[in-house]
């Protein structure tokens, strides 16, 4: 699992260490929810999860999660299933790298 490092070379945030396990567990659950939402064509649900990822990732030191959330949110607004699929795969890879 990644250390609770600060963003962009900033000093590590000591508050993150204790919070990281629950945060990562919820991000894994988000991956499952994203897949389910895509399968049912629920773009509103994709947008909601994407919005959460965009607003949260960098705060926990994971800029890539915020960036993926931003891309997912844009794809959900366009109802672009193919792009959503690409971004979900990207997100799964980010999570795999963090563990």
């Amino acid at each position, binding site marked *: 699992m990644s250390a609770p490092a600060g963003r962009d070379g900033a000093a590590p945030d*000591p508050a993150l260490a204790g919070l990281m396990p629950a945060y990562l567990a919820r991000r894994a659950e988000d991956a499952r929810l994203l897949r389910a939402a895509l399968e049912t064509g629920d773009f509103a649900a994709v947008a909601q999860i994407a919005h959460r990822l965009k607003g*949260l990732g960098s705060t*926990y030191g994971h800029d890539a999660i915020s960036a993926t959330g931003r891309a997912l949110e844009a794809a959900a607004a366009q109802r672009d299933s193919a792009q959503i699929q690409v971004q979900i795969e990207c997100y799964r890879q980010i999570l795999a790298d963090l563990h």
Partner: protein
Amino acid sequence: MRIALLEDDPDQAAILNAWLGEAGYRCRTFTSGAEYLREIARESYDLHILDWNVPDVSGEQALKVLRERVADPVPVMFVTARDSEEDVVHILTLGADDYLAKPLRRAETLARVAALTRRGRPRETPEGTMVCPPFTLRMSTRAIERDGVPLDMTPKDFELALYMFRNAGKLLSRAHILESVWGKTAALDTRTVDTHISRIRRKLDLNGGATGWRLVSVYLQGYRLEKSSG
């Protein structure tokens, strides 16, 4: 300092609580707008931090109600992942004092919280003196003078008077005062606050007379120190 946080996301709430707690703030989290509105009808806070998208009543609606219901100019910081110019302008126009787009950054968030909470406070000199004529409060000796004459104050009287002068003009609930002056874990009830308020009102002559200050009791809500018109 007491902060009300309206945030339904557990990870956002957890990190904000951790940052604010480390910085010495006491933060109470509300996960729905309805729960938050029930609380602000009976309690006071030094700062409100509101997310936009929360269950029941949105942060936007909660802000409107807060500004309608609470006459005191309590600062509000809006914290949301919505970052369009239109959204920022809308929320600031509704009465928020600051708008911070997620993802949050620790140092910036704490700097903005500090800036908002010191707004409207009486200035304290670098030597630790606060002048609220005719009173002078001296932090180093924990003493209060009226027109240069020292008053007889216990340490707790001083703490309470200092807290009320720092928050002059704000309505403070009994629980808020108790937490701030006696500490979070104080095993006391709010009648302790009433007793000490009566005492500093008498000792400092805060009845709206010669001192020009009045310490008023607001039924079922708390106390406010205010300048009297006379």
